[in-house]
């Protein structure tokens, strides 16, 4: 048996890296988040206030951006999950020879730079973009539909960018569900639909959870895509960060919300899938 000490020693290098490169920098932001920023002059020495935090909860604009960010996170996660599960199921349980081509197809967009992909969406979604022009020429709509610099634009762009993460997580999870257990349910009288609902879905819960957390966290902290597809006016929390003190406070608020939601969702999932 390995002693506790040996175990600690073995994980020490990783702990040091995590502490040194993640925890310490984040904690270093803590004093900054109480600082006072004067436009034009910069950080005022010696002054401190709770304003950076109080404005997050009291300021209407901040509140709207926070709700918008969370709403975006939830909707992108949900649509990614709904779109990915059938595809992941096909990859995991479909014909063997389709597996590699399909996975390559899923990964393919990730080979392109994020900025390039976001530009691609601007070209597609703009008022004079491909989609609006096509719809107008077909006579479906009279005037351009606003698809950019609003919720729709961000929703489409972020879903496209984070979908592969969800698919890959789900493929691994579904492949982990033992075929024998599904067969056992079938011989006990379950129809194919019931096998899926009673066995496959709950047993792939760890993957659903992991994929959802990943996509949610990536979405609410995304910067480049919201900056480009949201323009200067449609802001999310990440794009709102522009000076050190209020930026630090916002970062803390974002981290806190992410951790709280991850904790809550993993508890709920575990209860649902009977892993608690």
């Amino acid at each position: 048996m390995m002693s506790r000490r040996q175990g600690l020693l073995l994980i020490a290098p990783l702990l040091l890296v995590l502490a040194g490169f993640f925890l310490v920098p984040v904690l270093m932001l803590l004093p900054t988040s109480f600082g006072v920023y004067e436009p034009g002059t910069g950080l005022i020495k010696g002054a401190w206030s709770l304003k950076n935090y109080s404005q997050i909860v009291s300021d209407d604009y901040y509140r709207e951006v926070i709700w918008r960010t969370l709403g975006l996170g939830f909707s992108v996660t949900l649509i990614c999950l709904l779109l990915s599960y059938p595809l992941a199921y096909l990859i995991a349980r479909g014909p063997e020879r389709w597996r590699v081509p399909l996975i390559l197809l899923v990964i393919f967009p990730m080979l392109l730079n994020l900025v390039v992909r976001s530009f691609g969406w601007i070209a597609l979604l703009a008022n004079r973009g491909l989609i609006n022009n096509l719809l107008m020429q077909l006579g479906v709509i009279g005037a351009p539909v606003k698809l950019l610099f609003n919720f729709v634009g961000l929703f489409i762009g972020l879903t496209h960018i984070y979908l592969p993460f969800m698919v890959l997580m789900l493929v691994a999870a579904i492949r982990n569900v033992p075929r024998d257990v599904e067969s056992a349910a079938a011989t006990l009288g379950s129809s194919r639909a019931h096998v899926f609902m009673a066995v496959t879905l709950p047993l792939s819960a760890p993957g659903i959870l992991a994929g959802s957390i990943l996509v949610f966290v990536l979405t609410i902290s995304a910067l480049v895509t919201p900056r480009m597809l949201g323009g200067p006016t449609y802001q999310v929390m990440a794009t709102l960060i522009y000076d050190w003190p209020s930026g630090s406070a916002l970062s803390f608020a974002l981290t806190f919300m992410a951790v709280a939601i991850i904790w809550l969702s993993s508890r709920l999932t575990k209860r649902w899938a009977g892993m608690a």
Partner: protein
Amino acid sequence: MGSLTFEGLGKSYGEVEVVRDVSLTIAEGEFVSLLGPSGCGKTTILRMVAGLVEPSRGRILIGRDDVTTLPPNKRGLGLVFQSYALFPHMTVFENVAFGLRRRKVAGAELDKRVKEALGMVRLGTFGERYPRQLSGGQQQRVAIARALAPHPRVLLFDEPLSNLDAQLRDEMQIELKRLQRNLGITTLFVTHDQGEALSMSDRVGVMAKGVMQQFAAPEDIYHRPATGFVASFIGKPNRLSGSVAMREGAGGRLAVGGVAIPAARIDQPAGAKVDIVIRQEAVAIRSGIPRPGEVAGEVVLRSFSGARVQYVVRLAEGVEIVAETASHGPEAALAIGAPVGLAIDPAAVFAMPPEGAKP
């Protein structure tokens, strides 16, 4: 309840024929084992019965119902897997209740039947546990209770004991056999373990390369193997090659090197090259100068395995043969190099066409 019938059952994957034209009937309440090395097609047959694999040819009947094209959930069977295949996210109670709920059993009746099934496998108090909190043997018993609870017409076992350690396996063999006897459920049991098949079954089907070699009572399988494969697969065989020296009635004498071995049954003509199987347990060893009818040899290796002692004995011209004796018997402590006589039971000597030749 019901009998189980295969009519010309076959399965091919592309060009590969994994099950070839199997026809047999398992009577109601009978315990039948399919025995064979891995890849012989026995598991494929079981999965075809369960509806998990679609037959390429032939029919499967339960009682008088043709179930060949029915989906697994409509067949009313119980299947116990080698991997147990319990639902890890459900308690033991819910695992056993699964099949009953599918049959719309609920309330007090459900409770009663789950308890009854758990009682049969002596796990009455384990209902609230999760599978991961049980040992392998307990998990296997839950799997059996789960298969039994809905009162299936036929019970199927896919190597259910091979993940258990030897002692537990012996216990479970007896327990399973008793359970099956008491309930009188038609049972198909797939295994690669001949001891398991011979000791538990009313009849055994021995399979090789997708073909049913022999389907008969365990005693017949052991004492009267129908094919060379069965002879060499059952028991602990010595495998030698030689030729037919002389025919006499149904049997005659075989020659291995310069050693003559009598055999009760030989199908090949005199002079034919043959592979020879001699059961280790049918070779009696006696120290000293061989008597008439015995084969002379010399001990080169002794190995003790508890109840039995095995000797590797070198005969004339370097031919080696393994003989067994009881470890508390008079010949249990022979020295290396000791001269011995071997008495070979002619009924336990089987001659077959050489490996690679067409049967």
